[in-house]
């Protein structure tokens, strides 16, 4: 029974850091993780000696494929000067670093360690788009690959099922994209830093300068309907429904709850966490929901004693726009089939009643797959501490936030609830 799953002792997050996300020809995975760890060192309010780290877990999906190098646990421990402490790589496709976080939490909760480092890294941009598409497709279910599904294709199929069941359309997806792009310029770590309106203006200006026909879009949705601006990738997933190819790293310092005061007066605590598994499109009980989400959410709510209405804001895994709608329904923030109307009404905007993806989401922040899960948790950590800068959720006393991470095409889902006491 999920509600019975409790930790042996509590865990606090006392430091975190992430690299800028983007496409970096002149940085490799080690450079990116070093950038993240330097920020973590300066983020610990009372300072800390890295010698205190007793073990580490590093999420990485497929650097084996992307840069032909495997076995990232020891590479990163050596990079940080931490060898010979235990350093383990976790793999859960795009949920790889949330699994690193979970392993770190369980190691502290069990009493094995008191201070651990968790994080993730991925380096994708040295591959061509076709190569990345092939690399990501390694995480679809085996039968989907044989039927020539791509990653965006699986989510495209879920979107057609969602449209058919609830009467939604591509307009609903456009609302998600426009919202994410409105948050992105407020996040200095994000890969993209322009709103859709700004991108449109830039394209119009370029057309004028080059003497080309000037687009006459009436508004953002008009541009998103234009296949020259927003070409189909795996219809109904078009370019602006898809997260980009990214490089990046993220890391977080976890300590036993009773030690948190040695590191900071503003700790953030783990309230609940859950993880589920799924089985591919053909065998999924529903094409408009991820069963792995439901399992993860039941565990996390059970452990925390909290309910969906208690979650004040959340990061969710919007690898493709449709996924954001499905996740927010699976987690219970909105009823089944109700998320698309809630987004249209502005409920998930930064100043809405249920802000979703204040970071800009995977769509705009970027999605270096192995680094994404912990980067989501960092966003929640920053918001709860009031450290989110220009994208700090306005006018709210924040105590509880969530982060939902998805691996593959729903094969792995996690939900993690953090709280400030």
């Amino acid at each position, binding site marked *: 029974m999920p509600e019975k799953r409790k930790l042996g002792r509590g865990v606090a997050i006392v430091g975190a850091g992430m690299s800028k996300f983007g496409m970096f020809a002149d940085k490799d995975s080690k450079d990116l993780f070093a950038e993240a760890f330097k920020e973590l060192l300066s983020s610990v309010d009372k300072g800390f000696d890295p010698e205190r780290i007793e073990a580490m877990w590093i999420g990485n999906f497929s650097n084996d494929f992307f840069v032909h190098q495997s076995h990232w646990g020891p590479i990163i421990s050596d990079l940080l000067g931490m060898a010979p402490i235990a350093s383990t790589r976790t793999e859960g496709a795009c949920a790889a670093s949330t699994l690193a976080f979970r392993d770190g939490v369980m190691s502290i909760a069990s009493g094995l360690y008191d201070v651990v480092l968790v994080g993730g890294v991925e380096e994708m941009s040295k591959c061509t*788009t*076709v190569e990345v*598409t*092939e690399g990501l*497709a390694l995480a679809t279910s*085996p*039968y*989907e*690959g*044989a*039927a*020539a*599904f*791509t990653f*965006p*294709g*699986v989510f*495209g*199929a*879920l*979107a*057609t*099922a969602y*449209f*058919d069941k609830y009467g939604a359309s591509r307009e609903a997806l456009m609302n998600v994209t426009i919202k994410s792009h409105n948050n992105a310029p407020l996040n200095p770590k994000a890969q993209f830093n322009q709103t859709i309106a700004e991108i449109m203006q830039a394209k119009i200006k370029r057309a004028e300068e080059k003497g080309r026909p000037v687009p006459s879009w009436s508004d953002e949705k008009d541009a998103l309907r234009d296949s020259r601006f927003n*070409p*189909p*990738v*795996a*219809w*109904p*997933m078009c370019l602006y429904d898809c997260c980009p190819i990214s490089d990046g790293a993220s890391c977080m310092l976890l300590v036993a709850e009773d030690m948190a005061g040695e590191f900071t007066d503003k700790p953030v605590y783990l309230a609940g966490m859950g993880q589920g598994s799924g089985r*591919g*499109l*053909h*065998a999924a009980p529903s*094409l408009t929901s991820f069963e792995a989400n439901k399992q993860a959410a039941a565990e996390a709510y059970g452990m925390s004693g909290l309910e969906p209405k208690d979650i004040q804001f959340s990061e969710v895994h919007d690898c493709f726009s449709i996924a954001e709608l499905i996740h927010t329904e699976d987690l219970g923030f909105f009823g089944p089939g109700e998320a698309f109307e809630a987004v249209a009404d502005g409920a998930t905007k930064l100043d809405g009643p249920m802000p979703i993806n204040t970071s800009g989401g995977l769509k705009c922040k970027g999605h270096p797959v192995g680094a994404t899960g912990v980067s989501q948790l960092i966003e929640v950590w920053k918001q709860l501490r009031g450290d989110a800068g220009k994208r700090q959720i306005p006018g709210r006393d924040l105590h509880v936030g969530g982060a939902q991470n998805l691996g593959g095409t729903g094969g792995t889902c996690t939900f993690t609830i953090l709280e400030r006491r």
Partner: protein
Amino acid sequence: MEERPLSDISYYKFIDEEKLMGSECKKCEELYVPPRHFCIKCHGSDMEWHQMEGNGKLAAFTCIFIGPPFMVQQGFDRKNPYCTGVVELEEGPRVVARIEGVDAGDPESIKVGTPLEVEFLHRGEGDEEVVSLAFRPTAS
């Protein structure tokens, strides 16, 4: 009675022979396509082959404009997209398969719920021949 081992390898060999085969739990009669070693409903482990009729309806689909390398090699690209989807078989199970006989360049014309029948796509010749599972709208 079909005696081949229940496996994905056998499943794909049957497709080469233009047969869509699943497994049936001898205990609770639940059907699975592709076959499973274990019944996920009753956790029984005694399964036998069951040939599917090959009729169903479209449950979900996508039209892919940027495909994997093996589809790009077959000439599919932005100007020549293809459709693939999820088909709910009359017997209950769903399968993922290519969808033929629809206009992938005009996705709005493709409708969830469309009745479909199985078709086996052949490409290449001799030892190089590959057979793929597909469905197309049922001839009315």
